[in-house]
């Protein structure tokens, strides 16, 4: 058994040495295919990150008819915080509201001189949990707040929310279509390249079958070779992607005027990097398996 495994590994390595051009062609094709799909994935996760940072703006502001007394406020905040969709509740007093307004006016703050602090109402700023930052979540919170007569007005940027949701839906749709396209294109190119490399070696496959090699004996070294090429491709594409991200994307995004303030592009997480390499191995393995079926007929 151990001798067999050693023999298969030896043959896979020897095959790669004996066919350097075919081997490099297969590795490069797979690396380019993997890098393309991974780049697309990277763009998607960064846009999603951006969208999720925008979604933090989704909040409900409940204005008080009369500011609550100190004794009433704490139980009220606790009650709202206990709503299943709510992440955080901040009380904005009349004084705080006026202070914020003055800050926003900046140089024109002088306009508010002599204005009483009763000008602006006190309010509760209700921030939603990430999964509830959508129309349904907002509506659930609003309907609960409406039951409390102490609030006379509720604002939640309905129009903005609708546009934002449409944008996220479009993003998911385009992502799915483009992602599937890239994936199929990659699979098509890789399987054809592997088919061509095996076609060039069809004599070897024919002779193996002729001298009484079993299907398994013929296929295993080729599968090992495919998996090894896939592993190298995965590592190559990861290295290429990492370098381009560090040297090009991060620097150029920082100097790009449209880049939102505070947006820091993220690279693939550790487990995603592992998935990329494993995908490379699977791509090489399955690509070889499907192509071998065509050539090894006993």
């Amino acid at each position: 058994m151990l001798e067999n495994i050693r023999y298969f590994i030896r043959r896979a390595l020897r095959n790669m040495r004996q066919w350097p051009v075919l081997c490099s062609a297969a590795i490069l094709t797979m690396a380019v295919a993997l890098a393309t799909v991974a780049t697309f994935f990277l763009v998607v996760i960064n846009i999603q990150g951006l969208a999720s940072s925008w979604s933090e703006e989704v909040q409900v502001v409940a204005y008080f008819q009369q500011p609550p007394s100190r004794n009433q406020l704490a139980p009220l905040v606790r009650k709202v915080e206990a709503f299943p969709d709510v992440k955080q509740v901040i009380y904005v007093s009349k004084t705080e509201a006026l202070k914020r307004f003055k800050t926003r006016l900046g140089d024109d703050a002088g306009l508010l001189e002599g204005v009483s602090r009763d000008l602006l109402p006190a309010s509760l700023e209700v921030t939603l949990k990430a999964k509830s930052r959508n129309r349904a979540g907002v509506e659930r919170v609003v309907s609960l707040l409406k039951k409390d007569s102490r609030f006379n007005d509720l604002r939640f940027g309905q129009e903005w929310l609708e546009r934002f949701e449409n944008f996220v839906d479009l993003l998911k749709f385009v992502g799915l279509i483009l992602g599937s396209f890239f994936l199929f294109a990659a699979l098509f190119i890789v399987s054809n390249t592997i088919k061509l490399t095996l076609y060039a070696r069809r004599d070897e496959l024919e002779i193996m079958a002729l001298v009484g090699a079993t299907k398994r004996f013929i296929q295993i070294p080729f599968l090992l070779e495919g998996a090894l090429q896939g592993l190298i491709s995965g590592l190559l594409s990861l290295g290429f992607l990492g370098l381009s991200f560090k040297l090009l994307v991060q620097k150029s995004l920082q100097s790009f005027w449209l880049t939102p303030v505070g947006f820091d592009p993220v690279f693939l997480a550790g487990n995603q990097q592992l998935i990329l390499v494993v995908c490379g191995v699977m791509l090489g393995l399955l690509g070889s398996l499907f192509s071998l079926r065509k050539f090894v007929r006993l």
Partner: protein
Amino acid sequence: MIQLFNVTKSYGKESVALREMTVHVEKGEFVYVTGPSGAGKTTFLSMLYGATKPTRGQILINGTNITRMTGRQIPYLRRKIGVVFQDFKLLGSRTVYENVAFALEAQGKKRYEVSKKVYQALKEVGLEHRLQRRPIELSGGEQQRIAIARALVVDPLILLADEPSGNLDQEVTYEIMELFKHAHARGTTVLLATHDHSLYKRFPKRVLGLEDGRLIMDHQP
């Protein structure tokens, strides 16, 4: 050893390669299969090592009906049969040693056993000094010797040769024939397809004559 009963092989309605062929070959016999191009010689041999299946009829090898064999069983049939072709079918990227060793490795033989047997087989065909050369560096006759060594290294019960001298000159052909005669002398059943009349005149043995897919002659010298 080899029994064919009413074997027909057709490729579609128009093209029939073998028609109702019934023939028996005893263990240890040496048989020429002759006939013009397209007579069905290659089809006849390829059915014996399971490369093609007959459309009708039965083929028994060593008592086993090979027409009923599944794809999984075919490799085990081939391990009992050595095959030699006109175009040698050697791996150009491998050395002479590796080409011959390949047949034993495919059967899962141990490394030390492989090296011993490969050396013996190459010595028998007179190529033991060419172990590390590649086939392309050698002459046609030498390449055919490698192919014969590969076929014989597994000690086959049957040796099939499909026009083995087709690409070789007369002198080399006779040298190659000596190797087949040696294999035959050791008890291997040999079937040799050829259209070269001079061969069976010089080395007279049983001759099966094919024409248009029919067995038209079965001649014992």
